[in-house]
């Protein structure tokens, strides 16, 4: 009898113990998978959207109200917002958990690929080492993401677009009701775009999102969870094993259509977000090239572009002589000086910034292969020793120099390569490639 009682007791203990372990593991996995859910939920495409149970995730970022409202609305509306032109996939490259001030902090580094919706193999942009930090708290026996911070500039874009709508509605950003309304309008706008896109391409099948759960990593996370003291101690000691020092590096495709469209738009009227210089030709050409790297389009809001400029997005700073930037007041000679720009473009030792090729250097315009003169490229011209003028090709209507339409500052004009050739015996061509930027 005693033996039976003992056996039953041991069995119950083992059962409870294993249940506890399973529960702990389940809990740990659930916590650890919150970022995956977050990205999976973002990655849902319009054709696959359905109302889903996202009760486990609630976003309330008190420090960033617009961001919080936008994300919360995504949850409620179950709409993930794809712009009309592109889509993306992602992969979590690394993930670490730690504890700070009673919260679970999960830091992830994520690879994000933006690609054409019409042609998924046409990659617009690949970003790696994009840092996401999730702050997770436990309330009512559920874990919630209470704050997401990221180095991905996409979020500031959505904020700016919503802010634009608030202002257009004649309201103030401090008016939370007005912000809520603007979020709804913005969601509808994005959804309309997405549906419009879907109707244009009914047969498009977006590839499934690709990522693999690293269960070994999850087990490590579990150990981390069970070893809170060590984690805190490590953090207090500044243990670098738990900190991330990676520098984001983004390979960015050059969108010649965007660049040409920008040149067409701002040929005759300067973009007021940039300084206008006394000799503005190189500044204008650099703006066009930059537009190619940010995939500019006419519907991009002014505040978005302003935000890009303020954040030196797809510009180069902190690289001493290898900088390339322009702002509302000042710029770097690699941006504003045409010879510096050409030199910078072909400088293979630089880390960041536009890279490209120069054709027909120091040669007569008659040697230019006309077939290469396509929209999205730039030309530089000279009369004798030094190149002193530049323009941007925004359209091609045929295969003669007179069919290659150019935009140039200063004087602001739309003209043809043939017209320039009358004045300039020497014309060289600059083309632009996929390049690396820090953001």
């Amino acid at each position: 009898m005693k033996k039976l009682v003992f056996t039953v007791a041991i069995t119950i203990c083992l059962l409870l113990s294993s249940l506890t372990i399973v529960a702990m593991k389940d809990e740990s996995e659930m916590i650890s998978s919150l970022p995956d859910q977050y990205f999976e939920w973002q990655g849902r495409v319009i054709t696959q959207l359905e109302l889903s149970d996202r009760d486990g995730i609630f976003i309330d970022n008190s420090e960033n109200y617009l961001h919080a409202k936008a994300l919360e609305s995504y949850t409620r509306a179950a709409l993930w917002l794809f712009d009309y032109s592109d889509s993306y996939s992602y992969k979590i490259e690394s993930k670490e958990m730690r504890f700070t001030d009673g919260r679970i902090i999960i830091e992830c580094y994520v690879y994000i690929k933006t690609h054409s919706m019409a042609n998924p193999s046409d990659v617009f942009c690949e970003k790696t080492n994009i840092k996401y930090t999730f702050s997770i708290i436990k309330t009512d026996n559920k874990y919630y993401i209470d704050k997401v911070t990221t180095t991905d500039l996409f979020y500031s874009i959505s904020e700016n677009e919503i802010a634009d709508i608030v202002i257009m509605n004649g309201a103030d950003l401090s008016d939370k009701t007005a912000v809520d309304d603007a979020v709804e309008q913005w969601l509808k706008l994005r959804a309309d775009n997405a549906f419009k896109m879907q109707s244009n391409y009914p047969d498009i099948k977006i590839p499934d999102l690709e990522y693999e759960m690293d269960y070994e990593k999850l087990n490590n996370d579990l150990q981390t969870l069970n070893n809170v003291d060590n984690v805190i101690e490590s953090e207090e000691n500044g243990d670098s094993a738990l900190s991330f020092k990676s520098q984001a590096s983004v390979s960015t495709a050059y969108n010649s259509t965007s660049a040409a469209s920008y040149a067409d738009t701002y040929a005759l009227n300067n973009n007021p977000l940039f300084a206008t210089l006394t000799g503005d030709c190189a500044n204008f050409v650099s703006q066009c090239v930059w537009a190619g790297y940010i995939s500019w389009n006419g519907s991009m809001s002014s505040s978005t572009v302003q935000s890009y400029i303020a954040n030196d997005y797809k510009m180069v700073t902190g690289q001493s002589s290898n900088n390339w930037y322009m702002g509302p007041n000042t710029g770097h000679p690699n941006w504003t000086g045409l010879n510096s720009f050409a030199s910078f473009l072909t400088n293979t030792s630089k880390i960041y910034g536009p890279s490209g090729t120069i054709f027909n250097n120091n040669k007569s315009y008659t040697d230019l292969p006309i077939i290469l003169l396509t929209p999205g490229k730039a030309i530089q011209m000279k009369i004798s020793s030094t190149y002193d003028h530049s323009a941007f090709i925004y359209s091609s209507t045929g295969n003669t120099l007179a069919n290659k339409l150019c935009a140039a500052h200063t004087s602001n004009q739309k003209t043809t390569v043939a017209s320039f050739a009358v004045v300039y015996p020497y014309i060289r061509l600059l083309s632009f490639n996929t390049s690396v930027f820090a953001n």
Partner: protein
Amino acid sequence: MMIKKKLFFLILAIIMIIPLGSGCTKQSPDDNSSTAKSDSVTITTYNSADFQSKASEAEKWLKNNANTEEAESSQRYENDILAIGDSTYISLCCFETDGMVDRFRYVVEKYKKDEKTVIYNTFFSYDTCPFTLIKDESNIILYFMGLDIASLATWGDSGKIIVAYENGEAEIIEYSFSEDTETEVANNGLDKKKCRCEFMHLLKNNKIASVIAISAPQEIKYGGTTTRLFRFDDNLTPISATAINMEGMYEEKYFPNN
């Protein structure tokens, strides 16, 4: 590591600037302890009012003594005048167009008796050093071409140029200007009355040991104050500089546009 690097360059820049500041202080007539050195450092300051009055003076001189048509031309913006002995130097920014392409040139004309000689003529460009040294048979002039100097992120609208001579003497040329002046935009796009930072400065002698520029840009986010030590070609045109700012120490190349 990056912060340490920046700190290192900041300290280095401060160390470079302190002796120059000391030189300025020793200019004070009350500072008896540095009488010997006070004679060796000359400070000249140019500001917005100077640039405007010098531009008017140059235009007036040209009108009265040389060529009225040129003085009144909207294609020329005289910016400074230097009278040295029987020679008069006029510096100007010249606007050219063929109806299709606009170009700006910086020009220095020398008038001696009835003879006019162009002693400097270059395209305006953002990748050319904003100043140059011009030497003729009798004088050496520092010509500062600041048409868009405020738009160059690492130059800005004020700064100092320090010229050290082989005999140990030095000159500090300070410049600052404000764009707040009321402007009148001419048809050619040049702001006729807009204050621009352009001037000629007669140097003491042609035995120059080194030239250093310290610029104080308005937007410190791009490197902050930059100190440059220049190298010149045989024509005394700056061709490159070793620059130090918060981004580190680096070589800066200039593209002379002739």
